[in-house]
């Protein structure tokens, strides 16, 4: 089970990113647990400067804007 955190204050792009993660995981058949982090100090603790951010199993892989689908499957498959 992979743990994926979507970092963002809850704007539209953050919602879209969370949905993209779920879709990509379903397509790959990788079981994931998607968690949304909306608290500003928690987001800041990951050391990013733009949202939405993506953290896969504790490692920051993306910050700022929607991720690309091919990048997402790479992060989830790794």
């Amino acid at each position: 089970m992979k743990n994926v955190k979507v970092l963002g204050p809850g704007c539209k792009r953050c919602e879209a990113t969370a949905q993209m993660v779920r879709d990509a995981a379903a397509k790959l058949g990788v079981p994931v647990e998607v968690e949304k982090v909306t608290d500003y100090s928690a987001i800041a603790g990951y050391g990013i400067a733009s949202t939405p951010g993506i953290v896969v199993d504790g490692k920051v892989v993306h910050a700022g804007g929607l991720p690309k689908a091919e990048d997402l499957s790479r992060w989830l498959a790794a």
Partner: protein
Amino acid sequence: MAVSGRRWLLIHIMARNCGGCVNSGWFLAFLQGSSMGATAMGMQVGRERPAVWLGAAAAALAFWAFLYSQLVPFSEWAVGLLPLEQGGQAREAVKFFIYDTPKVLLLLTLVVFVMGVIRSFFSPERTRALLTGRREGVGNVAAAGLGIVTPFCSCSAVPLFIGFVSAGVPLGVTFSFLIAAPMVNEVALGLLFALLGWKVALTYLSFGLGVAIMAGWVIGRLNLEPWLEEWVRNVRASAAALPDKTITIVDRIEAGLEAVKDIVGRVWLWIIAGIAAGAFIHGYAPADLLASVMGRDAWWSVPAAVLIGIPMYSNAAGIIPVVEALIGKGAALGTVLAFMMSVIALSLPEMIILRKVLSLRLIAVFAAVVGSGILAVGFLFNLLFA
């Protein structure tokens, strides 16, 4: 001021930032259709063939130039079809609208596309790395410049602020970035260029940067770090190391298309509303009244414009067409630009967002410093473009 103030407010209440509101309409449908077409085509010809993409981009540019060259004949032809009296007010208003709408949308699309491509070379994380530990002075200049080219949306303002400050970017330098980013943006520059010419656009660019640099420098000199909210001072995060991404030229062209879809798709309705309001002013508003209220002789109109601008919230899209029409009617350029800067850079909603990280005292200092800068710009513009 009061006459047109209400109309402005109306336009701006409806405008939002950050892709939060999605307009449905023929223009957006067209954009989505064309970008989906481009994506589908890209999949067929393969993303590994950038030559095809570059060729398509060149062809699109040529088509753009053709459309642009047809603007005057098209507007004359279209107005001629309407049963309007030659030289009448209604005809003037309609002609203004029919000529300006496609012109502004065309120019804006090009500027936003180019800017989207340029921005694909930057990211807030990279900008932060460039600014960390930078001395004030040089740092303020760099931050204001980077504010123009770094992709940044207003819902990222708080994470960005904390991300910068906690990683060791000085407070004043962070402010220079945060002031320049919304104020000197491609929509404002593109519209000013389209409607008022390159001289005004360039002057706006340099004065906007000047305000951001000076205001950030002053805030840095005041040593206001203790006025940050306590939890912000306690965040100790090292900058995250993001994995490298390989970005190809195709990705950059796609980023440009994406920017057009996002930004133009969001603001086109407000531009049309702004041009319609501008056309009305163009055809009907009495020149004497406007000149006496917003003209160069009324010195108090600059501070009044700044104050009225604060509670309004918008990007540049809806205002600039109105600004052009007002100037045509004798309003002073400095006064209307001060109003515009105040609306964009000193917005109440943004201050409410920033209240999460800044104390009220710090917000007051921020507003006072930026407001004084805008005042200076307003008076200077009125002097220079006399």
